[in-house]
């Protein structure tokens, strides 16, 4: 099964990326100034389509060095350790983590005037409130994700999957999994609180009480969960091996399984959930800043490239018209009914310091319990 999935995924990914690259020669011909040199990128797996990278390198002479990351915190620590002389030019920061990077002087403001293709991004993402901080743009939105309830359609009904309660039900005891940090925010939302904790910025006691309540809930439900996991690949592995029947996940890894033909579906439950946006950002003191802008402008150049990123990663493209280049199954795996989308809100960063100051010890306590 996993072999089949791997082959299909590779085939689909390669085919999509090749199509995208072939469809975007215009920019690359234009960018063929052959400036040379290199650009160093820290990003998640499949966020730079292979065919695009190959063609970009051939046309511009700029070598693209990708270092894979799987965690926002690791990126932060790596970059903090390297500053003020970082080796990286472009990183992939989630929108709700901007503030932390900006406060530590790790990001350079993005000069959107240097990006002729900036207008290709859907304004919902490029012009939203979280994307402008201190009067500057700090990143180019590329992919959008959300926290969803994913379920094996042969084992769980669609109706059951419309509420987070199913994840904590006795019926599916030992058949569920979730990322515990993310689940804390969702549980707070499910309890009727603001999981972003922005509403409690002036009331830290209330914030602490809410986190304590969510913590106690997850400790109480601990005997029912099969696994606290960390990465999308782990979730896919557990689903494919039928170790779990349903779980909280990011939509990207779930969509990738759906596109592979696995009997999986996902919902944004009625209690609500959170969305996030991955952005490409330029590091402060980036060693190859000019090449970084050339790369960013290239990758934003056509909706086909956005579609290729979606096909490979499963996350939803932020590019205008990218969905027109997806097949029916891919469209299905990256779209949600309007009534479910209405339950979605984006993660916000304003209260992150207080939030994670409370959340991190709570997560340790849940794990230790």
């Amino acid at each position: 099964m996993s072999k089949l999935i791997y082959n299909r995924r590779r085939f689909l990914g390669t085919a999509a990326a090749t199509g995208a690259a072939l469809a975007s020669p215009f920019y690359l011909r234009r960018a063929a100034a052959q400036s040379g040199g290199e650009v160093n990128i820290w990003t998640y797996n499949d966020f730079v389509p292979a065919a695009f990278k190959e063609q970009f390198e051939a046309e511009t002479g700029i070598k693209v060095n990708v270092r894979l990351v799987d965690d926002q915190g690791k990126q932060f620590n790596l970059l903090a350790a390297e500053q003020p002389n970082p080796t990286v030019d472009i990183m992939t920061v989630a929108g709700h983590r901007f503030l932390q990077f900006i406060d530590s002087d790790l990001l350079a403001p993005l000069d959107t005037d240097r990006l002729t293709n900036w207008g290709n991004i859907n304004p919902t993402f490029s012009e939203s409130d979280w994307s402008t901080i201190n009067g500057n743009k700090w990143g180019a939105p590329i992919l959008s994700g959300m926290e969803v309830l994913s379920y094996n359609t042969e084992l769980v009904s669609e109706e059951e999957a419309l509420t987070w309660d199913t994840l904590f039900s006795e019926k599916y005891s030992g058949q569920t999994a979730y990322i515990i940090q993310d689940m804390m925010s969702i549980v707070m939302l499910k309890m009727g609180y603001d999981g972003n904790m922005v509403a409690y910025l002036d009331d830290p006691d209330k914030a602490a009480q809410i986190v304590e309540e969510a913590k106690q809930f997850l400790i109480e439900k601990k005997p029912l969960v099969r696994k606290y996991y960390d990465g999308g690949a782990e979730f896919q592995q557990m689903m494919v091996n039928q170790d779990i029947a349903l779980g909280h996940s990011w939509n990207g890894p779930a969509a990738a399984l759906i596109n592979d033909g696995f009997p999986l579906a996902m919902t944004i439950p009625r209690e609500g959930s959170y969305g996030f946006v991955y952005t490409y950002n330029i590091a402060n003191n980036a060693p190859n800043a000019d090449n970084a802008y050339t790369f960013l402008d290239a990758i934003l150049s056509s909706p086909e490239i956005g579609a290729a990123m979606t096909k490979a990663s499963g996350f939803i493209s932020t590019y205008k018209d990218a969905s027109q280049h997806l097949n029916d199954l891919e469209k299905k795996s990256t779209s949600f009914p309007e009534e479910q989308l209405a339950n979605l809100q984006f993660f916000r960063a304003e209260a992150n310091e207080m939030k994670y100051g409370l959340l991190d010890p709570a997560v340790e306590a849940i794990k230790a319990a």
Partner: protein
Amino acid sequence: MTYDASSQRGKRAETLETSGRTFWGRLVEWGPYHTLMRLATASPRRQFLILAAFPILWVLTQHLGPMLQMLRVSLTDAYPVAPGVEQHFTLDNYARFFGDSIFWMPFFRTLAFAGVFTFCTLIITYPVAYFLARHVSRKNQMLFLLLLLIPFWVGEIVRTYAIMILLGNTGAVNMVLKWVGLIDRPIPFMYTSFSMGVGIVYLTALYMLLPLYSALEKLPQSMNEAAADLGAGAWTRFRRVSLPLTIEGISSGCTLVFLISTGFYATPVLLGGPSTTVFAETIAGFFHVAGDEWPTGAAFATIMFAAALVITATFQRVMNSLRKGERK
């Protein structure tokens, strides 16, 4: 004009030999070199120091250096140091462990797991080592050892995934049990202390096996024969002869396996479940989390390192006294 090849070759060889001899000869006869070498090798102590210099340098830079750096980081309030931030020395990171009982459970759980898994590894590998050392002909022993070594040619992660393939709901063990009709639904082996234990025992078996094999292989056959002549049965021979004389191997193997088990990270993450969180995962959490959490992670790692050393030293003392007791 004729060309004498042999004479040319002879001349070239002579030139090379002369120049070679000249270089080394000149070096040896060079006053400072001669004096330096004479001083350096004047006594066995100096010769030993010269030989030991590179290994000592290696240990200092590659082993002790990183540990000292970890200790240093654990005593600071910020690392990596962000631009414009001043770093101070503090004991707060250690106080955080002792002041917050949240962290005690994974800490003691890790030590308990390491102890239990070490014992299980000993119980499982002792018969294997015994069989190998006592019942396999000497010419075949190397072949058997080689076979046992083969899984260790691949990394920890690959072997951990092999365990996942075996124990998963759709894994080999469940498939066989289903096929023979013993179960209808798969047994959830994965993400439990059992799956984690299987993984750790599998990964550490060789570290126990080799010291045991070494101790058993040195055990003279005549001792068991003498005990048998005096009427001792198989169990008595094992209990009164083989076991006491292999305490050194048991001690070395257990020490190695215990120390390794306390530091495992990837295997518990991949094979463990919600109730098996070990201290290495807690430590890793401090390095993953963005912010000034590295010093806390370093402090916790130092605490675990110190605790493992204390337990191991105590264990070694007990084993030594047992060994001395047997000799009396």
